[in-house]
């Protein structure tokens, strides 16, 4: 079946301000937020993109929603290249692809009532006003916000974090999209509230058959949501596979370090030293070849010369590492 979302060699550079010397020499330093990313998301899949800050996952999310343009490469949605979308076709895309934000307290205009905030996408899509009430009600039902009357006239500052995030989700669903990107949807919520929102997202995805991409730094959390996980490091995908596989049998040295570093609520958890050296390098001066090589305990000369490509290995996994070649 045709993939729903396809990315091919996507590259995104952010130019940085240049010193005089650089201007004169014609150099154009840039932060290479994404350095050649390719993967497919099938229709109805739930994929997690996991990585630490600076790995490019947020940028990737924004590119997939055409909130920014790639410097290179191509992204396709349901067969249509995003770069070619304009006018009516772009509006159509906007109806089908939505975003759930990280900060529920900021994702809603503080001057809008809840009703107005959730109805806004309907306005923008040119849907007849008579239908608004119905569709808003439907969206609220989906997110289990009982007692509509209580919320519709309220303002964001009157709601709790969990309620706000449900409203944000309702707004994202009101146009019945096909594709949903969630950027750290629960990281700013209290722990006891997160579980509820995660369960809701799972339920909504199943009920509506959405294709979902979850962006998170929390590997422990994505296990509950996604069957497939992509691990990113400094603008590249280093590992791609079933979430359980990645957690139980990580193949890439970075993933191994990541999995070992996550603490668990067990007082007897292992406390061995992490198999990783040093700190994240400056994004403007990435190591040649494999970006991870200066922190990797298994670095070989080959790693400096050649960037490893993402290759399938046993277990339904793909890994970008020369060790696995």
């Amino acid at each position: 079946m045709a993939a729903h979302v396809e990315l091919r060699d996507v590259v995104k550079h952010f130019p940085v301000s240049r010193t005089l010397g650089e201007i004169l020499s014609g150099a154009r330093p840039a932060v290479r937020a994404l350095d050649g990313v390719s993967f497919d998301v099938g229709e109805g899949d739930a994929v997690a993109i996991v990585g630490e800050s600076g790995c490019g996952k947020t940028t990737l999310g924004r590119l997939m929603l055409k909130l920014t343009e790639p410097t290179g490469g191509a992204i396709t949605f349901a067969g249509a290249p995003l770069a070619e979308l304009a006018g009516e076709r772009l509006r159509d895309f906007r109806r089908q692809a939505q975003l759930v934000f990280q900060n529920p307290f900021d994702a809603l205009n503080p001057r809008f009532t809840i009703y107005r905030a959730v109805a806004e996408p309907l306005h923008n899509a040119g849907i007849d006003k008579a239908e608004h009430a119905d569709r808003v009600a439907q969206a609220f039902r989906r997110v289990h916000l009982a007692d509509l009357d209580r919320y519709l006239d309220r303002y964001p500052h009157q709601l709790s974090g969990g309620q706000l995030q449900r409203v944000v989700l309702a707004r994202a669903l009101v146009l019945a999209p096909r594709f949903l990107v969630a950027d750290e949807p629960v990281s700013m919520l209290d722990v006891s509230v997160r579980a509820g929102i995660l369960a809701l997202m799972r339920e909504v995805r199943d009920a509506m058959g959405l294709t979902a991409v979850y962006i998170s730094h929390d590997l422990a959390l994505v296990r509950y949501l996604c069957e497939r996980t992509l691990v990113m490091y400094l603008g590249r995908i280093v590992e791609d596979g079933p979430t359980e596989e990645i957690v139980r049998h990580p193949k890439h040295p970075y993933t191994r370090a990541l999995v070992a570093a996550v603490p668990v609520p067990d007082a007897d958890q292992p406390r061995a030293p992490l198999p990783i050296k040093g700190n994240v390098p400056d994004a403007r001066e990435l190591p040649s070849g494999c970006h991870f090589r200066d922190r990797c305990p298994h670095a070989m000369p080959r790693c400096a010369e050649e960037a490893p490509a993402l290759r399938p290995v046993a277990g339904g996994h793909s890994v970008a590492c020369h060790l696995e070649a």
Partner: protein
Amino acid sequence: MMLEVEDLQVHYRTKDGVARVVDGACFAVPEGRIVGLVGESGCGKTTAVRAIMGVLAENGWRAGGRIAFKGQALDQAATKPLLWREMAYVPQSAMNSLDPVYTVGAQLVEVLTKRGNASRNAARARAAELFDLVGLHARRLTDYPHQFSGGMRQRAAIAMALALEPSLLLADEPVTALDVIVQRQILDMLRELQQRLRLSMVLVTHDISVVAYLCNEVVVMYAGQVVESGPVRDVLARPRHPYTMGLRNAFPDLMSDALELVPIHGSPPDLRETLTGCRFEPRCPFAQAACTTSPAMLGGGTGNRHVSACRRDGEADSLRQAALDPSTWQRTSSFAMS
């Protein structure tokens, strides 16, 4: 006992009345141990620590209770001289509180000379020592904060707190804003500090995994009160208070086989209202009639230090079993959605 807190009350004056943000908190920090103070937003953990340090906001004050440091009672005025010397405080996002116009080394030296009365040379030597202690290269003393990464800035903030060799370190969410690998490195560093310096610590966090990794004892707070406390292994493996049980279920565990997270429905009470009875009662699946009227007392167990503020503490084992079943927590969904 390095620190003893008994029935601490901290109130805040707000536009809509007095909020009893900490309302009867009791816990203790033995010498050389790391105590985790854990709870969700609004439970009072940050306020409790600020009250101990004597750095409450203008509209807050200690309304009651007893705080004793090394056996000596502390009141507002007495804590000032202790600041930076015996007790040190690393506030939330301390890494963002470094002054951007001075080098990190200069800020460290300033602490040592102004508060520690050291000579400049002695201060510089000590600054290098401190950097070494927290895992930073001494040559980075001449760097500015913006040249440091988030993790390095947090290490620097901890170095500043340790400058005058305090016996007690109070750290508020020291690793929350950091990436997971850096977080682990900082936690390892804190453990090393505990071992090398016999440093006692209070670690405030909302993350029980961090507590499990680093702390020896844990104090669980809810709505301004301590609901459970004890050795970390005991409390996490055999929780006795329904809130702790619920928290365990709501926390993702990378290594567990369970693929279900169970939320606790409802939300914490408004601390501006007068509250009678147990504060967790509206959200508790095991609540009984008596729970609404008489307050739960922190008690339980003879000799052992694992205590819980639940009237049904005696039935803790059977309640725990029931708590493992997700359907137990569905019964409270008649209350307001969280």
